[in-house]
């Protein structure tokens, strides 16, 4: 809640971490083949990490009040519900449409 000023140093480190993860995501997707949905899951895991870093540091959620964190989490949680239930339908359809 307090007006926390994020120093340049932290912002630089955040940028560094994001660039590193971008290189990682390209490298794993292009040169390591896990087969099946493996690459998809790995890429999504890296993307989620990156999104978490942006949300925590660039968007200051790490220093923010509880409510704004809850709002962000709510958005993500309901999105997960949306994906989850749609998949329950899709995975178990006996006759494809």
């Amino acid at each position, binding site marked *: 809640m307090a007006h926390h000023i994020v120093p340049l140093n932290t912002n630089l480190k955040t940028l560094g971490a994001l660039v590193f993860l971008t290189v990682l995501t390209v490298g794993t997707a292009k040169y390591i083949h896990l087969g099946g949905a493996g690459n998809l899951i790995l890429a999504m895991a890296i993307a989620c990490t990156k999104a978490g870093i942006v949300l925590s540091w660039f968007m200051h959620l790490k220093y923010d009040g509880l409510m704004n964190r809850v709002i962000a989490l709510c958005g993500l949680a*309901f999105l997960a519900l949306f994906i989850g*239930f749609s998949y329950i339908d*899709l995975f*178990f359809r006996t006759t494809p449409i």
Partner: protein
Amino acid sequence: MGAHGGNYINCEKGLWSWLTTIDHKRIALMYFIAIMFFFLVGGLFAILLRLELFTPEPLFMDGDMYNRAMTLHGSIMVFMVIIPGVPALLGNFALPLMIGAKDVAFPKINLASWYCLMIGAIIAFLSLFWGGVDTGWTFYTPYSSKSADAVAMVVFGAFVMGFSSILTGLNFIVTIHKLRAPGMTMMRLPLFVWSLYATAIIQVIATPVLGITLLLLTVERVFGVGIFDPAMGGDPVLFQHFFWFYSHPAVYIMIIPAMGIISEIIATFSQKTIFGYKAIAFSSLGIAAVSFIVWGHHMFVSGQSVLAGSIFSVLTMLVGVPTAIKLFNWVATMYKGRVKLDTPMLYAINFLSLFTIGGLTGLFLAAFNIDVHLHDTYFVVAHFHYVMLGGALMGFFGGLFYWFPKMTGKMYNEMLGRVTALMTFVGFNVTFIPQFIMGSQGMPRRYHTYDGVFTPYHVTSTIGSWILAGGFILAIYLLTRAFFKGEACTEKNPWGGTTLEWTVDSPPIHENFTEIPTVTGRPYEYR
């Protein structure tokens, strides 16, 4: 501004001062005018539909015309009347007053929200001159990707109106979090505010999905690509997932705030401390949460997997729990209270009885196997009218009669007010009870002709619709007349309410409170 001595209605003059106002009370009045107009138009279509069904043979409409009228009735009532009705009209007026704030958190966004509704409505109405739309308000694909051109317009109109809903919800959440008067803790909030809070959460989380759904449908039509069209590899069931992910929670956008009104009215007119304050408050949030995981019960027969159908069926039953908690608490509040049967209370009692029927028939339909039999029959039509009209709109009108003296400083004719409550109750049941019966016997919905065996039911239903319409028209006439010619009601607290809005002038001054009050206890502390 309060220093000018006037109230919020006469502190500034001229049409321009209204169209550019950022006062939440004036915006509420502008919603009042707009929504009443939409309600009359939507109601007119309903009457025409019922009239057409007076005889088994076509009376004065052909199938196309019937489908268009039906689509307009549904779209207008859902997107322009019931969804904005309680939150944007009564919520806008009462919320800041009830929590001791001078305005909502973002007054300009509040005004923008009104304009979104107007622009969206105009776009949707323009479709009438484009040949009309015959898809039903749900715009199901693949039919909606192929039928009349105007579909894209109506869909885009609904998209713009969605923004209105999102902005209102966003505004209310921040207002409730940040602008409460000193001492107004969350556990001291009036129950109407709790219900608006739960509603606002749904509006913010669910409406964007409607936005993207309608946008995709527009893209599909304008660009001529197949996102939901099976002929081009798309999945039409996906559209239904998208649509109902919003539109089922939207049902609760319509009903939860009406429940909040009922909590206020029942406590005030029973002159008794509300029974189970926390239970009612949290059941609103409970309904809001559950509303997001039940959307598949609209899709039992549309080809979704049996497993998903079963899960949705069970989860749907869960909605009954918080709803029943509310109903029992309201009845317990009335028990041994000094119940005054004034107009708002009569509407509240209408709500209790009609909504109970609507809720219970909802449980029948929630059962997967029973729904297969009843799907797309008049049973479903009757069910959701019991919830939407008998629930949401009865609550809405109860709230209008309840806050009218505060909004305008005028009093309506109490005797006639009671007559409207009675007329709507009788008319409603005469209209929709026959629909339950013929629905269970297999009368399908959305047809303009029917088998002769259903004639008695349809005739009764049509006659009931006239009584119902008479009641609502009389109610609107009563309020309009009272606004211009009614006797002044300068009393601050005509009903003996305990929430903060009853401590300010009727009508309130521009900034609501001359001095922001300090709250020391819960509302509804009667005895």
